[in-house]
């Protein structure tokens, strides 16, 4: 291939020179070039090496369908592999290299695979599963362990950076009346028509300039056209690819904001993921020219005819001097004349017997030779095209009749409308025998296909279909009532002739169908012989149309060969379903700004800053950041939480418990409502009293536990567990909206309204007394266990205080409006310090509650009944409540159910872990007889303890040694089963 840049051709700015690096060598191109155009102009033929056989590959197209020129852009953490050189805009300082080659693309040791190709035919990978014959034939795959390493190393094309992605990405939303995808002749016409009808229009183009196929016309001015469109009020989005269509006219788009700069500019992200919602979508996505399968059709210097036209008229690059064009359709003639006029020697071989005389005359007038009944047989050359063998059909085979010296072979095997996006909507295309392509079927959604995407080939008809699409959108949206007419499909003077493959006379040929995956026509035949005849099986067995190609280049050829083998029509064979994305998109763009620290929304309590300032180590519980422990003097967790729990038992501790769910329940029927929701009685709860409650699900299993405080006759304040706060809120809403619509109750989440601190320990009342305006309010008489009061702290902060204990100690929970939390904690901590108190975190909180046998999310895991957790006595048998019927069903009343117990190690110096299975001595198997759910070191008892469930419960297993089996950690330990109330079983400490 001997390409050259022509001064008077193209739309690139030849006054603006850009330098770039290819394979570590500096080259120059022009502003407006694609990387492929610059490489072509610099006469670089070999751009990459093929997937399996490491064959040299050059530029085969001028757009997103490119299968040969896949390159790696950037270096180090900015490495971006498998970029199509045809779509990559050139910029100053661009660094690019070939891929899948060692040491380089011009001389690649991997080329040896080309000679071993019989071992790498379709499905070879799957056959390696079967073992190495004859040694492992039918026995399995010991040697697979070796194969796997080799195959994994060899697989893939470019290598991604292993460093973190340094780029920023973001999401964005946009709305419009009409979304037009593709800015070719039909897209532009549709946009103008829709805008003229006062519709809000977005026109999306994946290229950096608008025009689509118009860019291959010498007289098309994309800047002038864009200005005109924008003036008409149309939002034009270039460098934006519609990668998927979804329900209700929602389209997913990727905008390459900064991929045409060395580094992002103006703090903008590298790419932006748009979700665009419209009332009507017009798909003017164009069509792709097909290759023809014949021997060595992948040698650098073979490309589609229309690509050569684009390189000439858009980039000013004449891709060859001696050009052979092989075709089966009319679309090549204009291009052949253009190439001839630009100075190339052009000869056309047309498989058809004849075409109209006018075209022949026109070709001859422009020095273009044409011969009929002839097809390409074989390319001669290794790293570049040197000549082509031309054949004529004799019977079922082709016979070589001459060899033409050339440096560029252009192929046109027909055109395939880009129907990928419509396929995402589940619409199956239909095969059109006349135009030899799949055409879009009618959509029941407001989606219209226009232009060559609808199988309309000539420019004027494409524009007419665009206008009709714009009118159709206006009609369907309801702002216009007028007739519109779509032109007929097709439009060539002479009918296309079905030519998909020139079958070689050789026993094995390199006749490629899918260039990206090295799938040959022989591979299709092999798949057929081995029974993989359905298109979906064919795809997976041969990799035809997989990965970023998505069938753009080779699908139709593969299907035609399979149809021929099955002696069926292509329409009977069908086509695969195309899935998003249409072209590859960065995972980073899908994540947007939701990465690293912001991968999930971070939820903090109003005391978060206070906790950090006071040395808290934090832990994630759900989305919440909660204090885990407060180390002193470089303490580790194990020491810190034991110290903290011990302090609570001895003096006083403060713990941020804001993450508890909080729900306001208001209305005259609040009491009735709570009485129906909770399993225990709430009908007679006095004002200024709180009660612990357990709510069940409909199926009788425990949903959540918490307390509810009666603030007034008609108002309650409910707390839930941290984990189930949202679930309980939704549940209460659902009950009120669907089952008990007659109840006058409003529920509102006030989880964010109130900050909460637990003050626990023998000195808790003393601590609190120093903080409240009237200490008398919290005396034992005025505030007994489960009593509550609403008062003020001595700096005027309003608060609610309840005497509630999760630790088994004398304890209070104090709630203030969140914006006062910081100041509340300052007061409390100053007071607690006077009593040698401590701050304690989640770990100590857990230790204290396990000692007392109090259950939490680890135990209330959605599988237990109220009886299982030894709280059955709380459940009322005098009322009906949610779950009351279903909890009585046999399986839940079984006496052999696993029941809550406390667990000690027999040898008190030993430890054990949550998740351990409890088994009978000498019967360590299966699920055992129980499980351990929570463990801790008990400061109160001086050894390791746990909570768990065992069949039959404490009474069944007391005084019996069981085994804690932990097969994951390969551990076994003798255990004693004890009452879950392991510390202060009589609850004396609760009263101070």
């Amino acid at each position, binding site marked *: 291939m001997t390409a050259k840049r022509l001064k008077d051709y193209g739309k690139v700015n030849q006054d603006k020179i850009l330098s770039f690096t290819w394979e570590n060598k500096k080259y120059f191109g022009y502003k407006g070039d694609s990387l492929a155009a610059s490489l072509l102009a610099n006469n670089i033929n070999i751009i990459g090496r093929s997937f399996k056989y490491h064959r040299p590959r050059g530029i085969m197209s001028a757009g997103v369908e490119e299968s040969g020129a896949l390159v790696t852009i950037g270096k180090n953490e900015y490495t971006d592999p498998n970029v199509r050189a045809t779509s990559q805009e050139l910029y100053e300082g661009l660094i690019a290299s070939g891929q899948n080659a060692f040491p380089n693309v011009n001389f690649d040791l991997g080329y040896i695979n080309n000679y071993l190709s019989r071992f790498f035919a379709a499905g070879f990978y799957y056959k390696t599963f079967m073992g190495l014959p004859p040694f492992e034939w039918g026995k399995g795959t010991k040697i697979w362990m070796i194969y796997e390493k080799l195959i994994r190393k060899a697989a893939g094309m470019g290598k991604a950076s292993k460093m973190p992605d340094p780029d920023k990405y973001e999401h964005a939303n946009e709305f419009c009346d009409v979304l037009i995808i593709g800015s070719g002749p039909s897209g532009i016409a549709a946009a103008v028509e829709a805008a003229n009808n006062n519709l809000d229009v977005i026109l999306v183009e994946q290229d950096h300039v608008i025009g689509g196929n118009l860019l291959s016309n010498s007289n098309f001015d994309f800047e002038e056209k864009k200005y005109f469109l924008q003036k008409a009020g149309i939002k034009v989005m270039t460098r934006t690819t519609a990668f998927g269509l979804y329900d209700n006219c929602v389209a997913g788009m990727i905008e390459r904001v900064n991929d045409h700069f060395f580094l992002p500019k103006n703090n903008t*992200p590298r790419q932006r993921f748009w979700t665009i919602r419209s009332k009507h979508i017009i798909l003017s996505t164009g069509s792709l020219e097909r290759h023809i399968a014949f021997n060595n059709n992948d040698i650098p210097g073979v490309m589609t005819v229309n690509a050569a036209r684009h390189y000439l008229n858009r980039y000013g690059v004449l891709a060859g001097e001696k050009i052979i064009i092989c075709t089966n359709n009319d679309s090549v003639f204009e291009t052949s004349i253009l190439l001839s006029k630009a100075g190339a020697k052009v000869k056309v071989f047309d498989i058809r017997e004849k075409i109209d005389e006018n075209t022949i005359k026109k070709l001859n007038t422009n020095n273009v030779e044409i011969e009929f009944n002839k097809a390409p047989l074989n390319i001669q050359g290794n790293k570049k095209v040197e000549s082509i063998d031309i054949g004529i059909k004799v019977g079922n085979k082709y016979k070589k009749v001459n060899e033409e010296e050339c440096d560029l072979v252009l192929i046109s095997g027909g055109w395939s409308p880009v129907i990928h996006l419509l396929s995402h909507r589940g619409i199956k295309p239909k095969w059109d025998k006349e135009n030899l392509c799949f055409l879009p079927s009618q959509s029941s959604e407001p989606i219209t296909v226009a232009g060559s995407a609808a199988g309309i080939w000539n420019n004027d008809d494409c524009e007419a279909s665009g206008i009709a699409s714009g009118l159709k959108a206006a009609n369907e949206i309801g702002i216009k009532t007028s007739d519109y007419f779509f032109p007929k499909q097709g439009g060539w003077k002479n009918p296309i002739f079905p030519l998909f493959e020139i079958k070689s006379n050789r026993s094995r040929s390199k006749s490629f169908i899918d260039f990206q995956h090295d799938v040959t026509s022989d591979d299709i035949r092999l798949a057929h012989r081995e029974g993989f005849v359905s298109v979906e099986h064919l795809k997976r067995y041969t990799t035809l149309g997989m990965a970023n190609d998505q069938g753009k280049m080779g699908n139709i050829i593969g299907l035609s060969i399979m149809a021929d083998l099955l002696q069926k029509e292509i329409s009977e064979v069908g086509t695969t379903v195309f899935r998003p994305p249409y072209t590859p998109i960065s995972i980073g763009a899908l994540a947007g700004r939701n990465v690293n620290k912001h991968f999930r929304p971070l939820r903090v309590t109003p005391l978060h800053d206070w906790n950090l300032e006071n040395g808290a180590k934090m832990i994630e519980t759900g989305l919440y950041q909660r204090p885990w422990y407060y180390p002193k003097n470089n303490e580790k967790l194990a020491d810190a939480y034991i110290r903290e729990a011990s302090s609570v038992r001895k003096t006083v501790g403060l713990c941020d418990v804001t993450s508890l769910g909080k729900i306001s329940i208001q209305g005259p029927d609040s009491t009735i409502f709570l009485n129906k929701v909770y399993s225990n009685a709430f009908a007679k709860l006095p004002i200024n009293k709180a009660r612990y409650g357990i709510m069940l699900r409909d199926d009788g299993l425990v949903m959540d536990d918490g307390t509810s405080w009666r603030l007034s006759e008609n108002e309650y304040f409910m707390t839930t567990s941290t984990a189930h706060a949202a679930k309980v809120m939704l549940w209460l809403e659902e009950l009120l909206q669907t089952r008990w619509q007659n109840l006058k109750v409003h529920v509102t989440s006030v989880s964010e309204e109130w900050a909460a601190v637990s003050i626990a320990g023998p000195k808790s009342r003393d601590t609190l007394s120093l903080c409240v305006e009237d200490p008398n309010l919290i005396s034992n008489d005025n505030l007994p266990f489960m009593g509550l009061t609403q008062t003020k702290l001595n700096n*005027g902060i309003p608060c609610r205080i309840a005497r509630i204990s999760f630790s088994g100690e004398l304890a209070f929970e104090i709630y203030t409006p969140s914006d006062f939390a910081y100041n509340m904690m300052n007061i409390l901590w100053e007071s607690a310090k006077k009593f040698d108190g401590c701050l304690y975190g989640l770990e100590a909180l857990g230790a204290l509650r396990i000692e007392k046998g109090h259950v939490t999310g680890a135990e209330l895991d959605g599988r237990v009944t109220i009886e299982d957790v030894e709280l059955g006595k709380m459940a009322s048998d005098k009322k009906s409540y949610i779950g009351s019927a279903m909890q009585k069903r046999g399986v839940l009343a079984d006496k052999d159910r696993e029941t809550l117990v406390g667990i000690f190690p027999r040898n008190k110096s030993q430890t054990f872990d949550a998740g351990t299975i409890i088994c009978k001595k000498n019967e360590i198997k299966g699920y055992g007889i129980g499980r351990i759910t929570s463990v801790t070191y008990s400061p109160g008892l001086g050894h390791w303890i746990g909570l768990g469930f065992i069949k039959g419960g404490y009474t069944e297993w007391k005084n019996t040694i069981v085994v804690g089996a932990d097969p994951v950690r390969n551990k076994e330990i003798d255990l004693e089963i004890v009452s879950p109330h392991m510390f202060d079983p009589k609850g004396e400490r609760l009263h101070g």
Partner: protein
Amino acid sequence: MVDRTSALDKNYEIVKKINDEKVNLIFNRNINLQITQVAAWPDTVSKVELIISKYLKILSLPRSNFAEDNDSFAIMRVEPLKWWILGSDIPLLSTEEGTTLDLSHSFTNIQISGPSAKLFLNRFLPLDLRDNSFPINKVASSAIHHVSVKLWLSRNGFQLFIPRGYAMSLWEIFQESATQFGYEIK
């Protein structure tokens, strides 16, 4: 009584960050947010509307997902049976009429204005903010990164209400995104 602390205190700095010589976004937080939720029963909606309109001295209450405001207060209908009253005390209702609830500390209120406010908000919110679809005093509930938020277009700009616990997390992302527009924090 002590001052309130905002969820953004740790990371709220009055600053102007110009991009391309422009400031296209202005952030302004409301540190003394006062929200009272008023809820009626299905059979008392008209009665409660009357009580509120009399108290606030306005002719009628806004319809669903709209607000009314003047210099001292705003009222928005956030659910079919619920209104939020901002910046004003409200009359106590009898239990038979409805309920009231203070939510002043539940949300962090950030005002977002400037020429790029819509563009910026659409980086996060899947709401149609075009003039015809989102006029002055329109209110909508939506989500940012799965966090439920409320948006009201007041005469002074968009008012975003974020649950307090998530406010800092979203604020950090806002600042990161805002650099491309050029922004000022007031």
